[in-house]
């Protein structure tokens, strides 16, 4: 390091800034490359027929109609299950409980849950929902597993949203004679709604892009799902199977393009809601 000190600080400054900026541009470049590569190869093959038809001969031909429906079922259901639990937890953590042992335990649980890899969720969902509870490889097993997986995301974002609601809202509603319950449901949650919504939208996005956990719990059936106990294949898994087994590269690219567009739309939606929320609260 000695030679570094001999170079004048102004030069090291310029050197460091150039180096760091090139790292940043490289990172951003990769993001653009990933998205552009998939869209470039995939979008030309995405037609109305592709989006609606049923896949034929293991997905070599035909479209991904049932797969889109299955993905929406699994991800939507996971969000629907996780949202009330997550929001209630967040309300409990922020409005009802002073910081203490119990909140620390709940937070620790959520933090650890957030760190568990999806394949472990898959293993768990497989023994617990699929085998022990006898739900089989099905939409509901997949959704329950994913709900557990995305729960920490919803808790964290809802908690932040509820904390961001100004103190004065609470004081005024108490001043008007509200009970705590009325205050929480009528005032705080209403004000925090967009923030909570962001969390749920992000959670659904995460469910859609998940592969390992749904592979072990929802199965990989290609038929149009009719009930919640039918097995289904999600888009991410379909893409994986098409490309991994070399079934059809064009359909794999097209599926990936649909997936990427969905993920981008979901993230932009979440970002949009969040910005509106921040603008309103502050």
């Amino acid at each position: 390091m000695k030679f570094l000190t001999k170079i004048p600080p102004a030069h090291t400054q310029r050197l460091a800034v150039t180096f760091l900026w090139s790292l940043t541009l490289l990172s951003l470049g990769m993001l653009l490359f990933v998205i552009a590569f998939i869209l470039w190869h995939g979008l030309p093959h995405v037609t109305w027929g592709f989006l609606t038809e049923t896949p034929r001969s293991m997905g070599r031909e035909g479209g991904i109609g049932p797969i889109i429906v299955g993905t929406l079922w699994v991800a939507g259901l996971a969000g629907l299950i996780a949202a009330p639990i997550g929001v209630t937890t967040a309300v409990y953590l922020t409005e009802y409980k002073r910081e203490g042992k119990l909140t620390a335990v709940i937070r620790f649980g959520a933090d650890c849950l957030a760190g568990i890899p999806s394949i472990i969720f898959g293993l768990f969902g497989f023994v617990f929902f699929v085998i022990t509870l006898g739900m089989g490889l099905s939409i509901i097993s997949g959704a329950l597993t994913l709900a557990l997986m995305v729960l920490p995301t919803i808790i964290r974002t809802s908690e932040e949203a509820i904390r961001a609601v100004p103190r004065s809202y609470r004081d005024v509603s108490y001043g008007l004679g509200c009970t705590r319950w009325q205050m929480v449901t009528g005032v705080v949650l209403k004000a925090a709604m967009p923030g909570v919504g962001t969390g749920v939208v992000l959670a659904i996005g995460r469910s859609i892009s998940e592969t390992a956990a749904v592979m072990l719990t929802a199965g990989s059936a290609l038929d149009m799902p009719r009930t919640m106990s039918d097995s289904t294949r999600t888009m991410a898994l379909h893409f994986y199977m098409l490309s991994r087994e070399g079934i059809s590269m064009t359909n794999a690219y097209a599926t990936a393009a649909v997936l990427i567009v969905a993920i981008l739309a979901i993230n932009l939606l979440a970002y949009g809601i969040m910005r509106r929320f921040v603008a309103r609260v502050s």
Partner: protein
Amino acid sequence: MLVALTAMSGLAIITAFIFKEGLPIINKVGVWNFIFSGDWHPKEGKFGIAPMIVGSIAVTSGAMIIAVVLGVGCAIVLTQFCPRKLTGVLKPSIELLAGIPSVVYGFIGVTTLVPLIRDYLGGPGLSVLASSIVLGVMALPTVTSISVDALQAVPLAYREGSIALGATEWQTTRMVMLRAGKSGIVAAVILGMGRAVGETMAVIMVAGNTLVMPDGPLSPVRTLTSHIAMEMGYSAGDHRKALFATGVVLFVIIMALNTIALAVSHRKAARAGR
């Protein structure tokens, strides 16, 4: 109150079930044999996951070198050298990288990166190196986003004070900001590591998945996660239990990483509160 405990009880049930399924076989084979033996022959009752443990460690270390250099670099630029408006655009875009499905990363790795490695560096292409790069890119948003938060949490006065003393921006960054934000950055790195260790599908696609101990950056590997995912489909009996036992090992590693990350960031919180 009861609902609030769902996350905690979910964690408890997951732990209980994974251990219940996995521990008996570890006892049967012996902890030592299970972790340090390289023989995986389910039909003969031989279950040794040493190559997979080494594989996971090799791939994760490689990934972390990439993720830390790029991630912390990005975080420094975003917090120190970049107009606020631009940061507001760049940070969400990098976080967007985290939303892209892991299979997409794996697929791009296998279609673009693997042939490059095969043609220019030799070997089968499906390798430790390819998996490290793919995982590094995947862990990048986690590392960047948490490091940015850590650096933004450093009081502005530190930076202003240092600049006022005549230090250049880079000297300030290196000697003041990075030091003050150190624990947050360490937490970011550990959480990124957790993401890299736990990733499954992307690794299956680019790692090559042989059951042999890897002997260099260009040799194919199998990680703990891909081991579970690949054999789960056709396993039964002791074989399946041994995969759960692999899950137990993975689980223990991840929990250790999480606990360290939490402890580090708590220490930071404690120090900030003082």
